[in-house]
């Protein structure tokens, strides 16, 4: 709680540069938390987070400044959820590697549809957003989104619904046989999960005040989210925060100066981590954490 207040007051004490770094951190926290709601809990690895991010960005680009800021970002999230509701009909007919490829393919499909539409309608592919809200407003919005994503991920995990999601990671047929409506479960999780990248995309469109299809639907977003979730143990709410914060800060420190070496290093670290710690960075601590919980010594916090 105290942490949230400190984060909310941060802009009063620090420079714009630090606020924009924090904004990035919060963005990745929101994206990663929302991704684990479907993919972390059920094991259905989605490469489609970039699609929702891009849809949110485009919704904002098309409606700004006709709609007020708050309404705009909420509608962007709703649109994104609605889209998940529709494609959920299709993507959950398949599983395993087919699901992975289909979500990647759908993102690329939407990217090319948007490129073609933009060329047909406007002749060019980029859009500029004029008169965006100031950095501090965007920062506070992103903070709220990140907190909401953490809370939702936590609530889902600790609910009956969440237990259902976890059951289909273990054995989907068995879960079905025991009366869990697995298709419905995945579908609902997908709709919830899609809301956040939509909102985040809308905020980031205003943050950069320029979008084009390639950066709005950048598949790197989908991959980066998986890396962060993996570092945090794939299904851990706190771990996902850790993974997002760690990777964003490391990238902030190195990326601007040595972009290629930094990316190579990230690649090497990923391979080494997966090879030697296949359950993520938090896994070795997980046993201790569980023991502490069992002791009941973890108060409040």
């Amino acid at each position, binding site marked *: 709680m105290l942490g949230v207040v400190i984060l909310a007051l941060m802009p009063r004490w620090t420079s714009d540069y630090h606020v924009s770094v924090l904004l990035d951190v919060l963005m990745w926290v929101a994206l990663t938390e929302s991704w684990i709601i479907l993919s972390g809990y059920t094991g259905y690895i989605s490469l489609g987070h970039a699609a929702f991010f891009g849809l949110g960005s485009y919704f904002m680009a098309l409606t700004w400044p006709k709609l007020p800021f708050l309404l705009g970002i909420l509608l962007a999230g709703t649109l994104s959820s609605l889209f998940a509701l529709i494609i959920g009909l299709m993507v959950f007919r398949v599983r395993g590697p087919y699901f992975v490829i289909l979500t990647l393919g759908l993102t690329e499909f939407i990217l090319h549809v948007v490129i073609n539409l933009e060329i047909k309608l406007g002749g060019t592919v980029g859009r500029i957003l004029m008169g965006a809200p100031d950095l501090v407003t965007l920062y506070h919005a992103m903070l709220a989104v990140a907190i909401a994503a953490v809370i939702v991920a936590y609530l889902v995990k600790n609910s009956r619904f969440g237990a259902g999601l976890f059951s289909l990671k273990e054995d989907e047929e068995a879960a079905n046989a025991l009366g869990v409506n697995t298709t419905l479960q995945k579908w609902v999780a997908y709709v919830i999960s899609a809301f956040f990248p939509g909102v985040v995309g809308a905020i980031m469109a205003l943050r950069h005040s320029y979008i084009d299809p390639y950066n709005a639907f950048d598949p790197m977003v989908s991959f980066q989210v998986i890396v962060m979730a993996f570092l945090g143990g794939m299904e851990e709410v706190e771990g996902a925060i850790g993974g997002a914060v760690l990777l964003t800060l490391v990238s902030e420190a190195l990326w601007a100066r040595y972009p290629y070496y930094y990316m190579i290093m990230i*690649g*090497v670290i990923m391979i080494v981590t997966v090879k030697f710690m296949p359950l993520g960075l938090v896994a070795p601590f997980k046993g201790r954490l569980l023991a502490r919980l069992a002791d009941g010594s973890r108060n409040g916090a």
Partner: protein
Amino acid sequence: MDWTRILQILFTGLIIGGIYALIAVGLNMIYGTMRLLNIAHGEIIMLGAYVTYWLYTLYGISPLVSVVAVMGIAALVGAVVCRWIFFPIISTTKSVSVLESNSLLIFYGLSIIFTNVASLLWTTDARGYSYLTNVVNIFGVPLMQNRLWALGVSFAVCVFFYVLLQKTMLGKAIRALIQDRDASLLVGVNPDGIYYFSFAISFALAGLAGCLLSMFYEITPFMGLPYTVTAFIVIVLGGLGNVLGSLVGGILLGLVETVGVSLTSPGWRPILSYSLFILIIVLRPRGIFGKGVY
């Protein structure tokens, strides 16, 4: 539409389709035998293209000669990746879903390493060279000689692969392993050898595709991902794990794209192939031949 126009479209479709087949067969070999999805496949193509470009512009070595070296290097890289990264992981990971997500992360790691090494070595500017650009008339259709070579080489390799899989003991062992792992182990198939072979062949074919593509397309460090996605489309068309299905699927997709583009415009190419892909995956998830495996 007159005959030369139709033939022209047919040839273009077969040229690009043959290359798609090469790319997809390799990707599907690794999926079929080990159930791993290599999202770094396109980056091997990219590296193959750059090495060919280097050998040609620096030493004047013909791409049709350097193809042997490119395939050799790629096969070696494939075997090393298999030995150092995937053998330990496969032997220690018990859960299928953990293996699936972890192998995805490793291949993603490889792909960003390859892309950024290429950016360091060759910058992000598009590169290209011209080789054998003289035009030959085939049945009245003007075609560049380098494209004819690409057509010839890719089809020869496809035929070779067909014979290898259908007629040899090694091919039978590979197909047995894909169809039923446990049963194939019982009859004495050595999976480790086949894993090595799959990785080496898969990377070599991707290198070969890069080599051929470099003769007539621009090379950039980021050219890989679209080819990876295209290869996914092809293996879904032909059925995941159905290696021969990929040969047919690749040529089919090449033809569909070329015909589609000639009826609409080049901007529509990705939309056409992704629509086909989504249709197939939803309506016939085991591929058009219905023989894919999960």
